[in-house]
């Protein structure tokens, strides 16, 4: 008998627990008066939520106004499913929040890129961006670059076809200070199954690039080639695709205007004598170095919270 009493007590306790859990999910109409009281008496998000939505979190399919019932008919499918729906007003908003907040966060973005506009020499760029977002649309940042060169086929053919040797520089390292702005924000549907948010940005920067001659005569490389720290303004456009709360994929096309010096041609048949002399006689050039790159943006802190109510 005692065991029976204990069993029944357990049943009652479980019944009470499950009923409480169901009420917390907003499954019962009994929650409506309480929510009304909260809306009127409490501040903060809860009160704001109460203003924006009916007292009950569930759609009231028996509402005399008929509006919620109409919504469910459109969204919930056949009428037979009505009694089981728990579609919440809080699931439906007129203007969804931005999926990703950058303001006050730090972006660490490893980058890999390639120069796209030089016929003779190609540079692979490996870089890291460190950006701080002052607002959601404005940021300042630093970029450090490391370059790896590769001569193009055309650089070899110009000798075979025209009996000429190209004048070229290679890039070693670089650094930039950047300011960026986001003028375009958008979202797209992936085969109409999911929504991805993205943005287009533009930036300008100023920095330096360490360059070095590739001597026309390979025998002169050690004695006459010189390095140059070239002032490098830059500008570019790019985009971010937001994958998670802390991860983006970034694409960009950027023009680094390298104010550089090339190996001088022999003047009057007389070549420069050493690296100092060659650098002094080197003509200045402005090289448009277009780089297309892709990167991954990782954000710190890794999570964010919305400051305004939904």
């Amino acid at each position, binding site marked *: 008998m005692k065991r029976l009493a204990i*069993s029944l007590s357990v049943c009652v306790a479980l019944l009470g627990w499950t009923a409480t859990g169901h009420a917390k999910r907003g499954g019962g109409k009994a929650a409506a008066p309480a929510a009304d009281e909260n809306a009127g008496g409490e501040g903060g998000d809860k009160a704001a939520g109460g203003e924006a939505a009916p007292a009950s979190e569930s759609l009231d399919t028996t509402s005399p106004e008929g509006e919620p019932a109409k919504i469910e008919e459109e969204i*919930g499918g056949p009428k037979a*499913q009505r009694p089981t729906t728990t579609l919440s007003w809080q699931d439906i908003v007129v203007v969804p929040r931005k999926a990703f907040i950058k303001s006050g966060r730090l972006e660490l973005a490893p980058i890999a890129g390639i120069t796209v506009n030089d016929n003779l020499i190609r540079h692979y760029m490996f870089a890291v961006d460190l950006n701080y977002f002052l607002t959601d649309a404005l940021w300042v940042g630093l970029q450090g670059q490391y370059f790896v060169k590769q001569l193009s086929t*055309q650089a070899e053919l110009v000798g075979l*076809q025209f*009996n000429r040797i190209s004048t070229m520089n290679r890039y070693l390292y670089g650094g930039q200070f950047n300011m960026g702005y986001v*003028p*375009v924000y958008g979202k*797209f549907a992936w085969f109409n199954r999911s929504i*991805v948010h993205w943005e287009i940005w533009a930036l300008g920067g100023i920095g330096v690039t360490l360059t070095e001659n590739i001597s026309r005569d390979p025998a002169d490389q050690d004695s006459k080639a010189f390095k140059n720290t070239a002032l490098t303004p830059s500008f570019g456009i790019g985009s971010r695709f937001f994958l998670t709360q802390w991860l983006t994929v970034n694409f960009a096309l950027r023009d680094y205007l390298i104010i550089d010096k090339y190996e001088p041609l022999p003047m009057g048949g007389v070549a420069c004598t050493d690296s100092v002399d060659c650098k002094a006689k080197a003509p200045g050039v402005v090289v448009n170095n277009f780089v297309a790159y892709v990167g991954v943006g990782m954000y710190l802190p890794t999570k964010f919270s919305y400051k305004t109510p939904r």
Partner: protein
Amino acid sequence: MLLNKHRFALLVALATVAAPLAAQAQRKSPLADAPAIRKRFELRSSRIELGAGAGSTINQDYFHTVMIGARLAYHITDWVSLGLFGNFGVAQVSTGFQGRVIDSLDPAGMRMTNVDREPDKTGAENALQQISSIMGAQLEWTPFTGKYSLFGKLFSAYDFYLVAPGIAAVNVKTAGAVARSCDTAAPQDETNPDKYVCAVKGTKLGGKLGVGFHSFFGQTVALGVELSDVIAQLNPSGRDVNGDGQADKNDLSWTHTLLLTGNLTVYFPSAKISP
């Protein structure tokens, strides 16, 4: 008897627990299997796209070809379409690289060295290859569609598409008169300049890959931009490429021609609205 009571109590307890869990299992958001966007304009599905515009080759060695063009596409579904395109060269703009190479050659028409393969300035200029037209057909995939805001004020629908695969017929000519076609055998005389140069002419078949986007103005008119890579067997200099000491058809090599085009396109019939 006591055992039966216990079993009954246990059954009641299990039913009490299981019933809400079963209900929860049935709880499924009505939005779960819904499309991402409802009641949207079907801007592509079962529509024909007709456009005209202009473009240019980019990243070429010797000439940027400025082109005008047209495009016709039928969008079989919202995300796949079959397109035809034709771009026709109207101007050939010398690249900076061409200028530096050609200007380094002897303007008097003589070789500056005793190296036989070194051309004179006119001979080098005449043999450079130019693109007359690029025409073809392509399959287009449109996985990305959406809308964007510009400065939070202007809103536009857009789509991104991929071109893969495409076939292209590239028609080429030389910049000037060249004594010998690349289809004829090269002279064996080492001192004959014609040994080292030949005319690349005619239509070369190749492939095409690309990406593009449309930005819509309403439901009928859109601005389309496409960046494509046309791959065909060409020889931009008309000179020796494979290093065998002469220029002929064996010097044709698979060459990438990047083409950037913009089109103003019209879609018809009217866009339907999705469920």
